[in-house]
């Protein structure tokens, strides 16, 4: 830790993290934020679903099947974003010993895995009418599958270590190694794909995406993003209670809500 103390800016940042990252403070803050985030999520989902399923005109090539894009693409985006977020939280927790960041990383993993799983299943459901089979070794689907394995590995490692601090730090190193590797995995899979199926149709490689498709896509992406933040806060709140159960403030809280 000493090696980072030298930079005044960084150390001020760390002080800030330690102050507002105190689990007790964050527990209250998150409790107040959850309803608002949930409301925004619900609103975005209603609008996005209406626009995506009803308002947007059918695609001239794919007909109405392309509407699967509005769940597939946001989930694929979120699956990758969640991994990067998870690795950043994990690294923060590991390097500066910030417990809240450990907890955030742990809470992100199952959500990220869900996004990945949804992206895989909806991709397969989209592929069937387009390619005629349930599974094609398409570059995006393949790297999504490997990403799913990475999430599973992260969660398995977390689950198999009892000491919460060691579990957090060990999985943090795994996440960092994963995040360095993901671009390489991605690149290698695309490289491999172009070697074997040079002329195949990629689901989202249309020459242009119309504005009528873009608007629902963006709104659905925002919806899934806010959904992620909402559920992150909910999960983090329970995890804080578990990890702080020996502290006075949790005892007081439990006593007051009996």
């Amino acid at each position, binding site marked *: 830790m000493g090696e980072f103390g030298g930079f005044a800016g960084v150390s001020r940042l760390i002080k800030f993290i330690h102050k507002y990252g105190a689990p007790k403070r964050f527990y209250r803050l998150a409790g107040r934020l959850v309803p608002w985030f949930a409301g925004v999520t619900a609103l975005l989902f209603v609008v996005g679903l209406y626009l995506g*399923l009803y308002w947007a005109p059918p695609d001239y090539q794919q*007909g109405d*099947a392309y509407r*699967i894009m509005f*769940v597939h693409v946001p989930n694929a985006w979120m699956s990758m974003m969640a991994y990067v977020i998870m690795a950043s939280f994990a690294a923060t927790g590991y390097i500066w010993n910030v417990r809240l960041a450990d907890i955030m990383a742990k809470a992100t993993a199952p959500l990220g895995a*869900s996004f990945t*799983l949804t992206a895989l299943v909806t991709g397969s459901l989209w592929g069937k009418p387009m390619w005629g089979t349930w599974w094609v070794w398409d570059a995006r689907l393949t790297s999504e599958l490997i990403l799913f394995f990475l999430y599973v590995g992260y969660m398995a490692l977390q689950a198999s270590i009892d000491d919460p601090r060691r579990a957090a730090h060990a999985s943090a190193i795994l996440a960092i190694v994963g995040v360095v590797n993901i671009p390489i995995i991605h690149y290698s899979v695309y490289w491999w794909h172009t070697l074997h199926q040079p002329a195949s149709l990629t689901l989202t490689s249309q020459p242009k995406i119309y504005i009528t498709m873009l608007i629902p896509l963006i709104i659905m992406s925002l919806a899934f993003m806010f959904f992620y933040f909402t559920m992150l806060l*909910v999960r983090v709140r329970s995890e804080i209670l578990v990890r702080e159960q020996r502290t006075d403030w949790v005892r007081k809280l*439990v006593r007051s809500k*009996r």
Partner: protein
Amino acid sequence: MTFSTFSQFLAMGGFAFYVWSAYGFAALVVLINVVQPIIHNRKVWRTLRRDLDRAEEDE
């Protein structure tokens, strides 16, 4: 107007099965992700209360 009738909307231009399965699966995953943390949270509170009761009995 993209669809003129409700049944046309349900038919999704002949891709009903794929479109509705995809949205259904996504909805299911979202639902599980909402319900599971809530159940977990209840369990946490139950154990916390029980542990506190035990600790106070000891005193």
